[in-house]
């Protein structure tokens, strides 16, 4: 009797997400996905605080080492473009994963990871350039808050790259217990969030003059 019952529950879930066998939840939603969205909501407050700190301190710097003097907009635009495009490749990975096409999924995930690494590399290059121009972490309020904000974002991208590569590895070795598409989707949500944070940073920090 118990058996039948569980199958009923599973059957109910099926129309919702075809890889959710036997997993009953009150809302029919995945625990992991709820947790991820909640985590992203929480991250809004984290980046909000860092962006606010930067907004408050953007104008407080020594004479010629302010934002308007050090930015290299064409370069940053290029790296922003790279990150934006990585969101596309991430989406393509997710749709491939939903089709259970492991190979294509892995290809797109790898490309996303490469684009992300490229962005991080660009940021490292940018930081070193600024540093050579004399803008150290402790130089001014502007520099402290700038490096902290973009540094936090950079760390998030780096963690994302590690996640992507881990998922690729786990898919190849078939070590993902349960629903692969959901894992890819979760990493995707995280990745897109990192992207939208950069959309804000790019406009608020780089494009609007201090």
């Amino acid at each position, binding site marked *: 009797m118990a058996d039948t019952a569980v199958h009923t529950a599973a059957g109910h879930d099926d129309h919702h997400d075809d890889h959710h066998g036997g997993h009953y939840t009150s809302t029919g939603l995945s625990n992991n996905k709820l947790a991820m969205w909640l985590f992203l909501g929480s991250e809004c407050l984290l980046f909000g605080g860092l962006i606010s700190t930067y907004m408050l301190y953007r104008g407080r710097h020594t004479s010629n080492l302010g934002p308007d003097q050090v930015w290299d907009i064409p370069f940053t635009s290029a790296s922003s473009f790279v990150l934006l495009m990585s969101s596309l490749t991430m989406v393509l990975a997710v749709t491939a994963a939903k089709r259970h096409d492991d190979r294509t999924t892995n290809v797109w995930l790898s490309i996303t990871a490469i684009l992300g690494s490229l962005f991080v590399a660009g940021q490292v290059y940018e930081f070193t350039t600024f540093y050579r121009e004399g803008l150290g972490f402790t130089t*001014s309020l502007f520099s402290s808050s700038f490096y902290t904000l973009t540094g936090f974002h950079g760390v998030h991208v780096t963690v994302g790259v590690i996640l992507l590569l881990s998922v690729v590895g786990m898919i190849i070795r078939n070590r993902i217990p349960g629903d692969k598409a959901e894992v890819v989707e979760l990493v995707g949500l995280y990745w897109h969030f990192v992207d939208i944070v950069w959309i804000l940073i790019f406009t608020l920090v780089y494009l609007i003059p201090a």
Partner: protein
Amino acid sequence: MALIERPRTGDLTPAVATPEATYGAFRRPVESTGWKSWLFTIDHKKIGIMYGVTAMFFFLVGGLEALLIRAQLAGPNGTILSADKYNQMFTMHATTMVFLFVMPMAAAFGNYFVPLQIGARDVAFPRINAFSFWCFLAGAIFINTSWLLGGAADGGWFMYAPNSSVPFSPTNGIDFWGLGLQITGIASLTGAINLIVTVINMRAPGMTFMKMPIFTWMIFVVQFLLVFAIPVITVALFLLMFQRSFDATFFSVEAGADPLLWQHLFWIFGHPEVYILVLPSFGIVSEVLPVFSKKPLFGYPLVVFSGAAIGFVGWGVWAHHMFASGLGPISVAVFSVATMAIAIPTGVKIVNWVMTMWGGKLRYTVAMLFAIGLIVQFTIGGLSGVTHAVAPSDTQQTDTYYIVAHFHYVLFGGAILGIFAGLYYWWPKMFGRMLSEKIGMWNFWLMIIGLNMAFGPMHIIGLQGQPRRMYVWTEARAGEGFFNLGFWNLISSIGAFVLGFGVLLFFYNAWRTHFGKHKAPPAPLDPWDARSLEWLTTSPPKEVNFDRTPVVSHLDEFFHRKYEDRGEGDRHDFVQVATAEELLAIEEANADADIHLPSPSFWPILLAFSLPIMAYGVIYNIIMIAVGAGIALLAMYGWALEPATAPASDYDPPEDGGTDLELATNG
């Protein structure tokens, strides 16, 4: 992640699956008794108890700090503590009570009872749950090691910049404080995400949100506050860490910094924090009062909404901690009015509690007394709160003992009395024996007398102009009249010791209940004639919680299973039709055939204790950061690759679970 249940024939309750070595040299822990069963457990009940025990330990630590403070202030020019030690003492008293006692105590009750109240078998992410606890413990130990390593933090729990910068506080105390709170912050954040998902997703069939027990509701609201408040303090603490450890300039006035940035970030977190501390106790009291009044909670929906409203409006009032800091009249006026607005939902709660008692059939058990005590004491704290929502009046009261009196009535009279109500109410459920009601009475009355003696006079002391955080007060500013500071400081100190003694009685009571020759007999199944689902199981609950997943059709489901409405038309006439024992027998007879609980794991504890290693690294040696990070990485991969229960190959079709990777690596 999730608990797995799949059709399978065979043994009835394989509470702990016995997995093989899943990979490499590591054999998965499988013990269900002994110390290993605690260290590697992912059972929400065991974790809840560990939270509780740790929190109560830190209650003693924080209490000892408080008594030292009061001993110092009993007379003028106290010499028990040096200025330096005193500053550390009040900083750590607040930090300990807030972060290491009340918050984890709420986590203890939340962990233990939320799954039980919603008819679930565990929380949504049992391993993350274990991680949260160990993380909290790791952070707590880390902060307190500062006592032995050059002195604890001495900047006050609010740690205002720039006094928290290295030139003004050259010891490592503040570094320990900041890094330790980051670690406990991770614990709170992961714990909060866990409980929110649990409440949203794991309610028993039929339990809609408006049929959810009020305690679960309040815990639910609190977890949202945590999820959104913790990142704000995280930002502040990171800025502080960069300032102190890496010479950043965030709070360096000479570089043009604005010290008010810290205050804003701190209080944007700090005010919701107040509700984080007090709402769980509101939830407990809202459970206890109906049970001992034999009536449902008056205006349940309104209590729910007012809880949510407090949580929401609590985000818009933080600057009332900064009325004296020169915000400008417009900001002050706005925040002043917003602060008054928060009195409305709070008042609603008090009215509803009183109305719950009105017309009831009141039984004065110790739990009930603590609940009534909360109504009275918290009302005093709430009303003194209104007096400093009025900003001009607050400029006289802020940073004086009047404020100390106010928030001790709110936090001791509110949060802690609620916690004790919960302890007495749920003790038989958690441990299967009842605490002595007789000692409990002494416990209650000594605490109430001590509380009012210790904190009541502080209203006078504060209005007579004695500021907070002073390691000595002087005869010259004490006055001579009825309201002289000397007399009331002494009364307050005596009260603190009475209060301390009252609290110790609880520990004696707990010990006596379980050990020694006056050991209490096993408790009846339903000693209080309770109303909610956690009583629909054995005491203490079985490892699987419920023999079968309950199906809910009422608010106060358990009550409605015991009592039947025999009234006609508008008349209600409830008659008891079943006892708890009979209900349990039905459940046991119809037990679910096949329940899988997730297996223990040692990754959570390993990951948690890698964090303080990194934190020590920030203070002392960068190599330790690398070592800690290495352990953390190892633990995360181990965790990600570890299935929730036994190896997937055991089952067919492959199970769903173990996808905690993202949370583990980001948390």
